[in-house]
């Protein structure tokens, strides 16, 4: 691993591979960029090599932190690469979230004749079942049913105008028409304000008390992300708990199972405690106030079992409501008989929500998508 033993390029390429293993998405062209940069600043300048690595191989503050760790480990090897072990651990802790990823689907086992009819009526029942009470096979069937949710992104008006058959005068287009006839007056064009999809931000609580719902909620988030992307809108997803994690990137794949595994790899706080107020503040400071939540529809999925300071949660929810277009709180317990919104967190947050919805079954998810579409 020392520079004296290897060809210099090999050492640097090895470093990019180590970085990739540590979770930084280093592509071939980035690695080439790194080699070019090292050649430019001179490979013997250790400090400049370090800066070249940061500039060419990283794309976010998280990447920078990983780069620094791997750089230190690669260029002064003292204790091997501890990152590899950590990664294994995080993978193990998320394994339980997958509903038997290796299985071929629950429906395969039965060989009875009327299996199709049975499944049809079961699908009806599954719609209304609490997702926390489902067994693995039922979860698999439900996963397929997410595709049936009908989704429309919410829209907002834009500053830009579109061509329309009535409305206000479109002077520039009228002039252009006239120009086409070499200056003779032509057809008069009209215009009106266009519409664009409004941004949707999902904050999914993955703390211990929400574990039975995490899989279904992430599936829903993935489904919303994919369908929004198809229609030109954006959905951004974060997990909250004790830490805030941006998981939108993991939802890039169309396959929901793989997307959830990918999300599991980046989220460090599965089934941990709930410090909703604090993570919400981090979200607002780092992303929300700067623009991500501005004018967006923000959906918070949580049961409101706040272990931190409920006052802080209320304060942050008020901030969120001032920035966002609409704040929707989804609570899996809301739909159950005898539920009263009495937990400290819920009481503090409710005055600052525009909608308070149930979120424990596919049917309630359908209601939610309806609320989002109308926002």
């Amino acid at each position, binding site marked *: 691993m020392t520079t004296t033993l290897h060809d210099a390029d090999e050492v640097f390429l090895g470093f990019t591979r180590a970085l990739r293993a540590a979770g930084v*998405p280093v*592509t071939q*062209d*980035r690695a080439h*960029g790194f080699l*070019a*940069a090292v050649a*430019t*600043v001179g490979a013997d300048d250790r*400090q*400049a090599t370090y*800066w*070249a690595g*940061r*500039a*060419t191989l*990283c*794309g*976010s*503050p998280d*990447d*920078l932190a990983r780069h620094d760790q791997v750089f230190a480990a690669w260029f002064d090897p003292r204790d091997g690469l501890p990152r590899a072990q950590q990664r294994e651990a995080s993978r193990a802790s998320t394994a339980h979230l997958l509903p038997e990823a290796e299985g071929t689907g629950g429906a395969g086992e039965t060989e009875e004749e009327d299996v199709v009819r049975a499944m049809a009526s079961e699908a009806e029942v599954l719609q209304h079942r609490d997702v926390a009470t489902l067994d693995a096979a039922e979860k698999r069937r439900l996963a397929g049913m997410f595709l049936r949710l009908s989704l429309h992104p919410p829209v907002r008006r*834009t*500053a*830009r105008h579109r061509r329309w058959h009535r409305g206000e005068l479109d002077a*520039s287009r009228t*002039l*252009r028409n*006239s*120009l086409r006839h*070499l*200056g003779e007056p032509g057809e008069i064009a009209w215009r009106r304000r266009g519409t*664009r999809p409004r941004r949707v931000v999902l904050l999914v609580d993955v703390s211990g008390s929400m574990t039975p719902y995490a899989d279904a909620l992430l599936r829903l988030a993935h489904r919303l992300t994919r369908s929004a992307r198809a229609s030109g809108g*954006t959905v*951004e997803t974060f997990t909250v708990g004790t830490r805030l994690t*941006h998981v*939108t*990137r993991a939802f890039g794949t169309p396959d929901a199972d793989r997307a959830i595994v990918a999300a599991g790899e980046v989220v460090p706080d599965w089934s941990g405690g709930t410090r909703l107020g604090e993570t919400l503040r981090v979200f607002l*400071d*780092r*992303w929300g*106030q*700067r*623009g*991500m939540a*501005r004018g967006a529809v923000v959906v918070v999925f949580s049961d409101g079992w706040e272990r931190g300071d409920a006052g802080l949660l209320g304060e942050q929810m008020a*901030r969120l409501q001032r920035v966002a277009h609409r704040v929707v709180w989804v609570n899996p317990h809301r739909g159950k008989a005898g539920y009263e919104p009495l937990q400290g967190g819920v009481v503090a947050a409710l005055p600052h929500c525009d909608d308070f919805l149930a979120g424990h079954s596919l049917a309630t998810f359908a209601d939610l998508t309806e609320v989002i579409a109308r926002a």
Partner: protein
Amino acid sequence: MLHGMDSAADVAARLGATGYLSDDELATVVFLAARMQRPLLLEGEPGTGKTALAEALAQSLEVPLVRLQCYEGIDASQALYDWDFPRQILHLRALEAGGEVDPDEAEKSLYDERFLLARPVLAALRQAPAVLLVDEVDRADDEFEAFLLEVLSTWQVTIPEFGTVTAPEPPLVVLTSNRTRELHDALKRRCLYHWIDHPGLEREVEIVRSRAPEVSDALARQVVEVVQQLRQRDDLLKPPGVAETLDWARALTYLGTADLDLASAAMTLGALLKYREDADRVRAALDRMLSR
């Protein structure tokens, strides 16, 4: 473009001459961007000098700075070019008044360079060498990013009626982002990445001294000490950036304050903090901070 920028130290010296103090890392990255002809993507807290770097670069290289401010819904015609329709019509009328008009000739004369309104990207390509600042690229949409990607990799723009405009020399491109959304990986891969942090105490004092020479040494130090303490607090909605430090130091100087005291600090707090909640919290703590 590169004359006088033969090493990172040259870059730092040139930037320093314009009053922009860079550290070695930033100078190295700028040097690499110029040498490798790659755009430079700057991220960091608001007010850490991302936009100021582009301005300083243009000034130090003595080339024009072309600025493209991004916003939601910006499209290629606002970034590239447009035709000046009213002038085209006037031109037609003038031709007609002058006598007989050959329609083909007339039409050809309409799409002449003098009726072309160059928007920032085209302007930067034509004025090269230049510095092109694409400010707050995270505010634009995905489609716009894809369009930028094309321009930034080919350094040319095609106008159907006119032809292809190629930059004789690629402009030095600086993109800034406030991270309101994650930029597309394809764009990030094209760029060199740099995260600008808040400066340390000594460097910030130097920055104030160099950017606002009218502020006295003692006041600059006092102001920076307070600002650095404020940035340590985790209860502020918007911790002050370097730009706010400069504003505050200047505001105090305009009021004739030579020594930072509670009354003048409280009066000018609006230059430093932009939220009522923050101002309330700081006002309460100011007494203790100034008495040290």
